[in-house]
């Protein structure tokens, strides 16, 4: 039995027509080629020494720290918003959604400029912040703010879909069983949302890790303070292309792992628990 002889096939023809396979091959090549190009140019023998350079290690540590904080930021800022967008019907919901999703499509440089206008030393909020001695531009906190700003929408998009797929009557059922809201959240809602939360956090981390435009605009490019891996890679590209390729390879591997983690988590599986006996 072939894999394309379902009952509909007699009407619709084989489900995997050759022309579609051809088109898919072309698309896949389009996405794969730049990666192959990168991999072909990577100076494999020098990769360990390049990645062990203090400057690279500093940028890596900073990147991981910024991404970790952006993950927490996305969770704290994104979860309530995702809940409200998925569950509540209210005037201005479309507007709120547009607002929240905007950073995803905005040119990152524009996002950085906007952040400067708000949190910069002469910014809307920045003036007041400076009054209490807080300055965000060109600091690690600023880099984190930029990464969070750009990563949170992806988290919201993913988690909102998860919440929308959660039957609100589950909470009603739990309430009739005597469960207080805290227990419902812990035992029913969060476990059911786990795949979406893991995926959302992984995608947000990947986005934060790759952040460039807003960071360099808002936080600058200060080694050890705001120079994350992408910024370091960009700088190296002009002085030491081989080192830039090695750093790019590292970023590529981390991002790919995070994307696989995200989609693996969303893949339908048997519950969220152990396999059947």
């Amino acid at each position, binding site marked *: 039995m072939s894999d394309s002889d379902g009952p509909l096939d007699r009407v619709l023809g084989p489900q995997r027509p050759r022309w579609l396979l051809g088109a898919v091959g072309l698309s896949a090549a389009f996405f794969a080629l730049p990666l192959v190009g990168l991999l072909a140019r990577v100076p494999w023998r020098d990769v360990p020494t390049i990645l062990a350079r203090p400057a690279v290690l500093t940028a890596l540590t900073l990147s991981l720290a910024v991404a970790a904080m952006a993950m927490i930021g996305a969770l704290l800022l994104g979860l309530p918003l995702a809940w409200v967008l998925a569950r509540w019907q209210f005037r201005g919901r479309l507007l709120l959604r547009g607002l929240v999703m905007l950073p995803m499509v905005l040119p990152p440089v524009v996002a950085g400029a906007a952040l400067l206008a708000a949190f910069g030393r002469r910014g809307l909020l920045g003036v007041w912040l400076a009054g209490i001695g807080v300055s965000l531009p060109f600091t690690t906190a600023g880099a984190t703010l930029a990464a969070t700003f750009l990563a949170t929408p992806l988290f919201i998009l993913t988690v909102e879909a998860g919440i929308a797929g959660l039957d609100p009557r589950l909470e009603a059922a739990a309430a*009739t069983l005597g469960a207080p809201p805290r227990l419902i959240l812990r035992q029913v809602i969060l476990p059911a949302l786990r795949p979406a939360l893991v995926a959302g956090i992984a995608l947000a981390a990947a986005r934060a890790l790759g952040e460039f435009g807003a960071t360099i605009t808002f936080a600058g490019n200060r080694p050890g303070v705001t120079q994350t891996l992408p910024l370091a890679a960009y700088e190296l590209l002009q002085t030491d292309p081989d080192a830039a390729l090695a750093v790019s390879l590292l970023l590529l591997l981390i991002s790919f792992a995070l994307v696989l983690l995200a989609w693996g988590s969303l893949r339908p599986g048997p519950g969220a628990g152990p396999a059947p006996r």
Partner: protein
Amino acid sequence: MSLRARVVAHAGAFTLAAELTVASGETVALVGPNGAGKSTLGQCLAGLLPLDDGDVLLDGRVLERPAEGIRLPPQERGVGLVFQDRLLFPALNARDNIAFGLLARGMPRRAARRAADGWLERVGLTAQADLHPDQLSGGQAQRVALARALATEPRLLVLDEPFAALDVAAQRDLRRLVAGVLADGDGVKLLITHNPLDALTLADRVVIMEGGRVVQCGDADDIRRRPGSAYVATFVGLNYLRGTLRRGPTGISVDTGSGQLRVASTDLPDGAAVVATVHPRAVLLSLTEPATSARNTLYGRIATIDRLDDRVRVTVDCRPLLIAEVTDEALGMLRLVAGMPVWALVKATEIDVQALGAS
């Protein structure tokens, strides 16, 4: 225990205005067409939908009375609700789904799991304890949902269409389990259903709702004798007779206590508790003693004649009591009136015999 509810609630253009009293230990079937407000009433009792007026009292305790600003949350009502589509917690296995309500009541996890295992055994799912809801069949999932609700020992148990969306075999098994649950204990039990047989076999009393109101209530015989509307007539339109199967030398019959009905072949053993159903259209009426092939010829007087839309239902006080559905034309031709003696004829092959769920 007892339930006394006067429920007034609005949902959009729909108004629910229903009164319901259920005695301790009693099972009431809540029936009605789609959109009658049965499930809404169940959810109001459970505290999932607020009342606009009226009150709900369970064992004399006021669960809700908007006029006095009283409204207990679902958690504090002791009302167990089993939903048609189960609503098991997807991330918990069968055991933990059942243990959930016990944990919510502060039982330590180990004790709750042990109790859940006891329930799994009672509903015949010991082997499925570690499976998640998406690994259970519909019937198994509904058993877990039932056990989950029962484990918290609710004082009012509401079963909302528990047999819907199940295949025939699963329905049969679950019906046996539910019959045992409903017959057991002194709690108040509400069975929401659209299946006449379930309402008549599993409940002590039937409450019929239409358009958000209770239109009729009574035991099975009351409602069969005097259906209050076309819907009710269709709903309980069947001649429905409980009895015992008798296999004799001259053939098979059902002894209903008040009389015997000859039936066609069946696999059920002698002495089995059965339900015999006959559609009123299959009951013929004759003014003279007929000589026909019909195996059942029962003599009695016409008790009532009810006209419902285009149908005429004639209740004949024979043994057992039978309802015949005739056309207006036949009614006029035979000049049937209440009190008139007639023969009711039923072919043995028109009688459907099924084992009673609880047996």
